[in-house]
């Protein structure tokens, strides 16, 4: 519990009958650390939630969106069981996964065409009790499917990460945590927390997810790109 006002903090801690609206609830299930301390601080439970779905909405590729998950996956792959990826968008490149610390023989890749099959495969994996982590790419999934998946997730203490296209942001979802990823300035990944348990998040996070450092090429004026205008730094910037 962090309070801006240092003088107020001890008073609030003593009074159990005062509830601070900006507190994140103590999640019954502690989450699995994501490997990004700035993100963990904003997530109820201090990490990827277990026993419920987490949605990652993103349209971009090549901005480090998968790298966001790699620290957690690397830790999960050290335990016995499958790390299941259902219908990833491209072929994973094994040397890069190994460099991120992932023990790749425990990776299980499932190619399923139809959304219903993908959700079915995820449910089977959840119910098998043989998995340490699940990631699925769902480009078309209706709410009823997700609700069934959420029910299956409730019984299993595992993080379930679902990648969905950004325009699904408008659709209702039973997921307990929804994040939107987009390219941020200076090669950081911008993370907007659309939904979480507890008070809503207002400021985006800016995370560096790549293992290697990058020069700031956008400072070069030789790139006439509409996306690369002058960068206005947001008021609160957290660079992990």
């Amino acid at each position, binding site marked *: 519990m962090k309070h801006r006002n240092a003088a107020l903090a001890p008073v609030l801690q003593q009074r159990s009958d005062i509830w601070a609206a900006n507190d994140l609830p103590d999640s019954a299930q502690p989450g699995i650390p994501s490997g990004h301390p700035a993100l963990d601080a904003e997530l109820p439970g201090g990490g990827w939630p277990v026993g419920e779905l987490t949605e990652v909405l993103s349209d971009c590729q090549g901005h480090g969106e998968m790298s966001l998950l790699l620290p957690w996956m690397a830790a999960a792959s050290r335990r016995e069981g499958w790390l299941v990826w259902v219908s990833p968008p491209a072929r*994973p490149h094994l040397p890069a996964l190994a460099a991120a610390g992932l023990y790749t023989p425990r990776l299980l890749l499932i190619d399923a065409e139809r959304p219903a099959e993908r959700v079915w495969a995820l449910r089977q994996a959840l119910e098998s009790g*043989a998995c340490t982590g699940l990631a699925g790419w769902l480009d078309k999934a209706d709410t009823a499917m997700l609700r069934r998946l959420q029910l299956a997730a409730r019984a299993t203490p595992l993080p379930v990460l679902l990648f969905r296209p950004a325009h699904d942001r408008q659709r209702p979802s039973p997921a307990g945590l929804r994040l939107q990823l987009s390219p941020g300035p200076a090669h950081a990944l911008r993370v907007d927390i659309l939904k979480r348990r507890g008070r809503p998040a207002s400021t985006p996070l800016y995370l560096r997810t790549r293992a290697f450092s990058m020069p700031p*090429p956008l400072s070069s004026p030789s790139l006439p790109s509409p996306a690369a205008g002058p960068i206005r730094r947001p008021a609160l910037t957290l660079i992990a």
Partner: protein
Amino acid sequence: MLWLALVFPEWPLQARFRTRDGTRPLAVSQGQRVIALDAIALAQGVRVGQRLADALALAPDLVIRSREPAAETAALQDAAGCALHFTPHVSLDDDALLLELSGSLKLFGGLDTLLRTLQRTLAAAGFESVSACAPTPRAARWLALGAPGQRVRNVAALPGALAPLPLEVTGAGSGALLPLRDAGLRTLGELMALPRSALALRDAGPLLTLLDQALGRRPDLRVDHSAPPRLDSRIELPVPRQDSDVLLFAASRLFSAACARLAAAQSGVGECALELEHEGQPPTVLTLRTGQPTRDPRVLAGLAREHLARIALPAPVAALRLQATDWLLMPGRSRDLFGAQAPSLAETRAAAALLVERLRARLGHDKVHALSGSADPRPECAQQPAEPGAARPGQARTRRPLWLLTEPEALAERDGQPWRHGPLHCLEDSERIEAGWWDGLDAPLAANEALRDYRIAIGPRQEVLWIYREHHPPHRWYLHGVFG
């Protein structure tokens, strides 16, 4: 000694119709007469001993099968297989089972719990039974027939318990019973009250031997049923059906019987064949692979469900047959001191192998795979699809993209710079990959040869890409990976 007799009411019917779903009246016939029927047929007015024509007039949709002793024997052996889980001393007695339970009571938590579990196991396999307990096998059988539910624990109480039973429970032929009936005898009690010499005069000698065995005055030896370690059981459907719910219901009966049998042998199966027999067509065979030995009927039923969802049956199914020949020893686990136990490593591995098989049963074999690393420096050859569980770890390389394109995408070039929806800005350093020349030593420029300078490039939307330039003229640019 504590003997339990299991008697199956309307046994010819139970043996021929293991899936009684209560939708149509069922009956079994012998020599144009009804000899066994179910409750629906009874309610419609069909009676034992009726002629078939009369029975069909009363119940037009009656399903009639002729009696088949071979099917009854096979079904009784299936039931005995279920009972073997509870005691090694199971013997077949015409159409009943006799179990010696004195050694099993403690393990299964007392007689009540054992009987409940036994009835449940048999019901899951499609058998309804009534039972009775007695210190001798013959008395147990007679009590199960005449007064089901009775439990007699000591020999001294036997004469009193047997006394009210009718003479017919002895199973003695009508030739032996008729003179006694003529003499006014109805129950075993009346028989026991008569002097033995008088009975011997009335040709009741064999009956007296049976009575002595029942009362424990003469030895009555029983042979333990032994079954070969092999599963082969079959269930006929009352009418050929195609809907998977009906087929799964029938299959679950086979699975329950098979798994009780496997539990008795402390074994499991890794593979079994479920044959769906059609009329006038070769059977459809579903091969159920579990990855790891199992004896859980739900696991087998789950696999069968996935298979049935995927295939199209050529014709309605008349019968199902389950076969498994390779039994693998599967020792049980002792309970933890505090009851609950975390899954062991072996259990996690078994679940992991089962998950792969289950996914493959529905999605197809090559839709589920692992990635195996290789020492080939060409990026496209650094990983290969591999059998889950047999994948090798690969070499770690930094500054490599997470996603690889299946085919490198040729890039345009403008002002000496690669172009993809805008100019691509390359980082300084590059990685040269020169490999694959061994694939075509005799050709000057082999198709698989790679001689490329890889670079990390930043695209117009700030996406980070992995591109390369061919070393050979015309030095084209290609996109090969994305840093996800």
